[in-house]
Structures are given as structure tokens and as C-alpha cells.
């Protein structure tokens, strides 16, 4: 096994672990978010609709906590998509064909997923807060607005890598058709 393949193999194992943990987290947080959506007093006509599904203890949850869990769900979903795409990229590296147009597309998709996930996390806080104010629901302490610059930087890096792989694929094709 070459050094390159060894590194790719180790990274694949790490990414597989990240993928499995993220997938479990995504499913758990998704279910909890769904449960909390039913449980949290959301105000307006929704309360009338959801009352049948609630028990007395459900009102312990606040809108802020629901926002926190939803943000965790979004982050876990982002990790699932990113780790699965990175595993596909590593597979092509192990196969010795990293410079293909599909890898450029994969990195572009990673950048898009990070971008939209961060955008959703930014948007959900003011929407939930406005909702709480409009319908007179308690927001609570959690679910504050926070900007994660690392993730935005990650999206930018993924975009740069997409362009590098696109150029690499072009050079690879040119090299293949050089006689």
C-alpha cells in the first residue's frame, strides 16, 4: 500500500465514523425537534391543532430550546452530506483518478450544503423570535444568534477546491489527449 493510499484509507475510516455519528445525531435530533415542535406552545391556531398530541409536562420546553435542537439537526445533516461526499472523493483518490469533473462537482455541492445550512441556522433564530413575539410565546434563554465563521470559511475552501479539481480535470484530459 502506498503512502498516499494509506492516508486516504485512514481518512476514509475517520470519515466513516463521522458519517455514522452524524447520521445517528441527525435522526435523534430530527425526532426530538419533531417532538418539540408538537410540545412547544407555538401560539396562534397551531396550538389548537397540536393540543391533542400534548401532555401536561410538554409545556416545559421553550421556543429557544426548539431552535437549539433544530440547529443541531441542521448541523448533523450538513455533516452527513459533507462526510459522504468526502468519502466519495477519497475513493477516487485511492483508485488513482482524483482529477475528474465529478470531484469538482462534489466539492461545489459541499460548499452549497455548508452555505445553505449556515444560512438556515442564521435565519431560524429571527424567524422563531418574531414568531414568539407575534404569538406571545415564551422564547427562553437558549437559541441565540451565533455566527460560526469556521463553517463559512469551510464553504469558501470547498469552493476553491472545486475550482482546483476542475482545473486538474481539465489538465488531466489534456494530458490524456497529448500524443
Amino acid at each position: 500500500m502506498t503512502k498516499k493510499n494509506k492516508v486516504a484509507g485512514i481518512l476514509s475510516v475517520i470519515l466513516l465514523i463521522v458519517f455514522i455519528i452524524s447520521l445517528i445525531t441527525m435522526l435523534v435530533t430530527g425526532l426530538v425537534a419533531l417532538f418539540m415542535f408538537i410540545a412547544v406552545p407555538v401560539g396562534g391556531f397551531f396550538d389548537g391543532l397540536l393540543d391533542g398530541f400534548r401532555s401536561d409536562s410538554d409545556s416545559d420546553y421553550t421556543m429557544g430550546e426548539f431552535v437549539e435542537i433544530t440547529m443541531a439537526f441542521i448541523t448533523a445533516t450538513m455533516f452527513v452530506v459533507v462526510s459522504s461526499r468526502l468519502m466519495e472523493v477519497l475513493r477516487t483518490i485511492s483508485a488513482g483518478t482524483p482529477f475528474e469533473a465529478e470531484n469538482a462537482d462534489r466539492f461545489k455541492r459541499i460548499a452549497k450544503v455548508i452555505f445553505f445550512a449556515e444560512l438556515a441556522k442564521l435565519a431560524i433564530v429571527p424567524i422563531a423570535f418574531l414568531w414568539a413575539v407575534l404569538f406571545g410565546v415564551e422564547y427562553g434563554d437558549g437559541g441565540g444568534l451565533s455566527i460560526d465563521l469556521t463553517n463559512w470559511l469551510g464553504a469558501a475552501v470547498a469552493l476553491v477546491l472545486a475550482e482546483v479539481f476542475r482545473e486538474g480535470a481539465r489538465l488531466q484530459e489534456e494530458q490524456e489527449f497529448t500524443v
Partner: protein
Amino acid sequence: MAINVKLDRILLERGMSLTELSERVGVTIANLSILKTGKAKAIRFSTLEAICKELDCQPGDILSFDD
């Protein structure tokens, strides 16, 4: 593409097959085929030199430019 490859005509004139040329110049048949069908994006000077030497011709006999 504006560059035309006339390798098949030269080969016909010399009565040489692509396989024979491939063996003589040390370029694979697949690569010569790419060149012959005009799919090549570039040609190395060393390849051109070897082809010209074996076919006893000038680069202009193999390549031409159409405006």
C-alpha cells in the same frame, strides 16, 4: 478544430499500417488513433519528430491549418 491531421493519407501513400508505425515510433496504437482521428489536443515535438523520421516527411505533410 482548425488544425487538420493528414496522417491517414501519408500512411496510405507510404503503404504503412498504423500498427507498423506504432511499433516503429514507440507510440501506442491508441495514441496514434487519437492523432489520426483529430481528437488529440497536443502533440509532443518528440512524437512529431519520430513520425516524420519514419514516414520520411515534413511536419507540414502531417499537419495543416484551416482558417
